[in-house]
């Protein structure tokens, strides 16, 4: 069997096992939180009768293990079930949210990944001179400021004072692509600022590491221009660590943007998950948790595989 295929199969099997463990962890986690979904729905205005009626209707009186097995059985048949709180089909409402989350992550990635790599290359080219220092200073500053603060600052100056972009990024199906892009301009900018530094610094460090090698010196002696050396010789040899950090940041763009979603009122999955955690709506929390875990595990797997394929020594083990 092809070793690369075997590797992928192995990783996939491990990933699925990991997802199963994650689902148990999430279930146990939501069970041990105080209060239950009936209490959360009815809030302070709950009467004992209304609570008992709601618990009965939602099937909360069954033992926890039974509820978990029911859920797992449904999942294996592709049924995510219905939300306890509003009775809506989870797959349907989650589908729209997931689409929105991926939409935002996609455009943030389209802007930030090429920009980060380009800035990284630029920093190497002008190493220890003012462009390098400027790029490092700006990106490090933007990663050090909490993202909600960057969000508020951009919202105030660009949204309220200049009026260039909307401050509320609620997209819906009635919008054209152009309108949607205009609506998400501010959150995309904030996300770009947040993930830029990490990727840029890693690109810079990885390439600088390679630049010490003898073959770079040879290339220099051949008379190649600095940029061509970086692009043709240094970059391909430092691709593995760069892909790793890019994948980590992509995963962050999907699973870690709940604060940005709240600040800009973006209807993505993070907000959806938080609402349902606070209501103890276990089936929804399970479904969101699984998707987030799958994205994280999947992207990490891609990073692993790419770095192995990019390295001939790992590709052809003795």
């Amino acid at each position, binding site marked *: 069997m092809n070793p690369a295929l075997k590797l992928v199969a192995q990783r996939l099997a491990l990933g699925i096992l990991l997802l199963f463990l994650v689902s148990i962890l999430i279930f146990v986690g939501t069970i041990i*939180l*105080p*209060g239950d979904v009936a*209490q959360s*729905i*009815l*809030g*302070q*205005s709950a*009467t*004992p*009768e*209304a609570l008992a*009626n*709601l618990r*009965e*209707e939602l099937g909360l009186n069954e033992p926890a293990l039974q509820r978990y097995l029911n859920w797992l059985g449904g999942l294996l048949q592709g049924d995510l079930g219905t*939300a306890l*709180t*509003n*009775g*809506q089909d989870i797959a349907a*409402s989650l589908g*729209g*949210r997931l689409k929105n989350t991926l939409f935002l992550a996609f455009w943030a990635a389209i802007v930030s990944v090429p920009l980060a790599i380009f800035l990284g290359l630029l920093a190497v080219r002008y190493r220890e001179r003012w462009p390098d220092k400027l790029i490092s200073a700006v990106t490090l500053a933007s990663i050090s400021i909490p993202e909600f603060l960057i969000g*508020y600052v951009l*919202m*105030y100056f660009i*949204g*309220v004072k200049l*009026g260039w972009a*909307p*401050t*509320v990024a*609620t997209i*819906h199906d009635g919008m054209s692509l152009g309108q949607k892009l205009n609506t998400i301009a501010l959150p995309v900018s904030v996300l770009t600022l947040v993930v830029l530094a990490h990727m840029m610094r890693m690109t810079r460090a990885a390439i600088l590491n390679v630049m010490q090698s003898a073959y770079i010196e040879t290339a220099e002696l051949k008379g190649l221009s600095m940029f061509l050396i970086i692009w043709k010789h240094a970059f391909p040899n430092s691709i593995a660590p760069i892909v790793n950090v890019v994948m980590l940041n992509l995963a962050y763009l999907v699973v870690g943007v709940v604060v940005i979603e*709240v*600040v*800009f*009122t973006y*209807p993505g999955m993070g*907000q*959806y998950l938080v*609402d*349902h955690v*606070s*209501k103890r*709506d276990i089936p*929804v929390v399970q479904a969101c948790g699984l998707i987030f875990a799958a994205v994280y595990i999947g992207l990490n797997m891609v990073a692993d595989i790419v770095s192995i394929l990019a390295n001939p020594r790992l590709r052809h083990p003795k």
Partner: protein
Amino acid sequence: MNDELKYLSLRAATGRLSRRSFLGRAGALGLSAVAANTMLAGAVKAAGPQKGGTIKVGISGGGSSDSLDPALSANQTQGMVSRMWGEPLVELKAGGGLEMRLAEEFSSSPDARVWTFKIRSGVSFSNGKPLTAEDVMATMERHSGEDTKSGALGIMRGIKAMRAEGMDFVIELETANADLPYLLTDYHLLIQPNGGNDDPTAAIGTGPYVLKSVEPGVRFVFEHNANHWNGEGHASTVELTVINDDTARMAALQSGQVHMVNRVPPRTAGLVSRVPGVNVHSKSGPGHYVFIAHVDTDPFSNQDVMLALKYGMNRQEMVDKILFGYGTVGNDIPINASYPLFTDLPQREYDPEKAAHHWKKSGHDQPVLLRTSDNSFPGAPDAAALFQQSLSQAGVPLEIKREPNDGYWSEVWNKQPFCTSYWSGRPVQDQMYSTAYLSSADWNDTRFKNEQFDQLLVAARAELDEGKRKQMYADMGMILHNEGGLICPMFNDFVDAHNDGVAGWDASAGFSMMNLYAPVKMWVTG
């Protein structure tokens, strides 16, 4: 003032000239921007409601787990959404009293036990089905049945029998209740075809708007219902966007992305009101923040301990520092001037000497333990710290225990002997007292049991003479003020805001956002 300006302002007010170009032309005629704006506001009012356009509302309080079933309505977003498509039998009128909605009139038997509501004829639901008394009865039954999960169950309990006779809907009560029509203004009790038994979340009702698009916790779009029985509603489209983050909601209002918002944070309300084109409205209501002690539990069963705590509360400081002035001082009863038949009692003031006297007399010297959390009311931990300070000046030791938000309502409130909490209030005194201060009430969160109080409460319910009833409520207030476990430092105002894109704000309407009817009653100015 010359005629050209008058003409321009009228055109601007009716939307035929944009506000910006009006201000420009007024400036050219030598008018300052402030004067021009004032003039425009006057003209808008004089021009009257404009039809058409889209009103955009930024509202906080909704989540993606919300249901469309009015029985489960528990936050302002759900309340506003269901008021757009549905209507109750009777509603609170702006400025006090009741307004007839789906009931044309009502009457009661002389003993206030049997109530007859004449259902409005010629009204249709948005699915075309005509409204009948059977629909009303089915709705009331859905909210009062044995297996209901309705938030209105508590107020439906006293009903013995209901029947529909032609277009009359008759309610028979177990015991007399002069307040029944007020209870039916409850925001859960919106009339649905066949009581909503077929599909409680269908959002089909008789309201002035029809729900067109739903994303729970995100966005709701309504279109005007051209067949509404009294033609209410000015804008042709209403768009509700849920914006729970305070800063984002205020930014959306300032940048003009929404026309109106609820819950302006008191901390920043002063700043927001200085933004040109933004109007901030504050309305005192029945909502109050409370420190509640179980008076059947040691040490709070000792009246001197209670009095020490009550005299050790600096109420004005609470209003100034916790509500930033957007509120009024409380007087250790859950009732204020926003209730009908209210009588002002002598105000209890902060008095460290009296507090010290009662504390010494009680014989206690251990610190009193107060539990609090962020979600018990906004700023509760800060309020607890202020209380600790004002008590320490009287030599009364208070220990504060911070509890997590999660599970506060199920584990701490109504379970632990002394904690912070809030009440959003009720439309009438009887309901507030029966909910939380009657000996047998489920939510008697102060464990207040007083026979004389209970007798007065039941007697007042059956009393149709307003003067006598008012005196009874005053007597009950006095008992609670002196012997209750309730320390009520403040009543919080509802603070809302809208910008110049809409007009028609009615300051006499109660509660938040003109009793949540602002998008129906206001209009777009263009």
